[in-house]
């Protein structure tokens, strides 16, 4: 319905408490960012689920493509030496 002037879509991220990072919770429509924050307060934090809100217009998010996920993430799969269990340390050695 391109003839109608839709409010743009915003993605909403919420920090549930200090010490935790913001987490994506969903999206909503708003005329501008300020309204998006107000709407996010009503839609996503009616039960004190957050202490901080980020909003960003959905069109500004660039996402990796699932079709390329193999070439994107495969290189990490055969690098077991990046994990601590790859290294042999005798049990007698403590605190390592």
């Amino acid at each position, binding site marked *: *319905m391109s003839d*109608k*002037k*839709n*409010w743009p*879509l915003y993605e909403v991220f919420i920090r549930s408490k200090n010490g935790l990072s913001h987490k994506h919770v*969903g*999206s*909503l*429509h708003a*005329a*501008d960012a300020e*309204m998006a924050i107000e709407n996010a307060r*009503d*839609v996503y934090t*009616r*039960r004190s689920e957050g202490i901080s809100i980020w909003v960003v217009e959905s069109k500004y998010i660039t*996402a990796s*493509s*699932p*079709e390329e996920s193999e070439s994107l993430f495969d290189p990490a799969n055969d690098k077991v030496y990046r994990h601590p269990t790859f290294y042999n340390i005798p049990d007698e050695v403590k605190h390592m």
Partner: protein
Amino acid sequence: MTQEQKFQAKIDEEIRIEPKDWMPEAYRKTLIRQISQHAHSEIVGMLPEGNWITRAPSLRRKVALLAKVQDEAGHGLYLYSAAETLGAERDDMIEDLHSGKAKYSSIFNYPTLTWADIGAIGWLVDGAAIMNQVPLCRCSYGPYARAMVRVCKEESFHQRQGYEIMLTLAKGTEEQKAMAQDALNRWWWPSLMMFGPNDKDSKHTQQSMDWKIKRFTNDELRQRFVDMTVPQAEYLGLTVPDPDIKWNEEEGHYDFGKINWEEFWNVVKGNGPCNKQRIRARKKAYDDGAWVREAAMAYAEKRRKRSEAEAGIKVA
């Protein structure tokens, strides 16, 4: 393996499907239909209850009902945004609701005649909705499942506030008890219909089960609802309006009577007591709000231009 087989293999392995993943067109369509219908039901569902906010019998009841109805608006919004991740446009969905092309749960086409109806709705209608929604938290489509997790967390207060209203009325005067019984009489059967047609008549069930959109059939969920609700009615001292309700020792379930499917289809087709009134109210709210949406957009545009101009001056 074809793309479709790979897709099914992911589903079989309980790997969730996310918005940008490849999916069969029919899966996308089925989800858009189901999620948008679900969203419409939450939104239209505010109307019968909203009818009683100004007449709630105490401040305690009023704040609870207000919070519940506001939650339903939130549920509608979570669901619309889940449908949008599949490429559906918000305006198209709303237009489909207004034109009658899209359906919503037919239970909301019944009127709320007395305060006891608010109790019965919370207890039975939200109770049935919970029964339907809990398995949807494990739906194969990620954004729908996540929306359902939020919804289910909020629903349990809805059902409890409804049951508390019923309990108060059932323990009240003869007149109040009669009101509660009358509300149960009118809401019982439509609540059973909320689970949809019998399995043998449900054309979408098998495919939706294979795709793990649905986890249980309509009849399985309906049976669970009956088993859960009959003892709750007994506790209230009220009678479920079905002479065939009987505990079946062998099956470990309650037997219950035949549902009037003719009534169900008639309401679905638009001939329920309140279909026209509900859509009229939705359309009016949408149309009356048009100038607000336009003004907010114009204001946002003006502010954007002004801040751009100011930035331009600074650069120069």
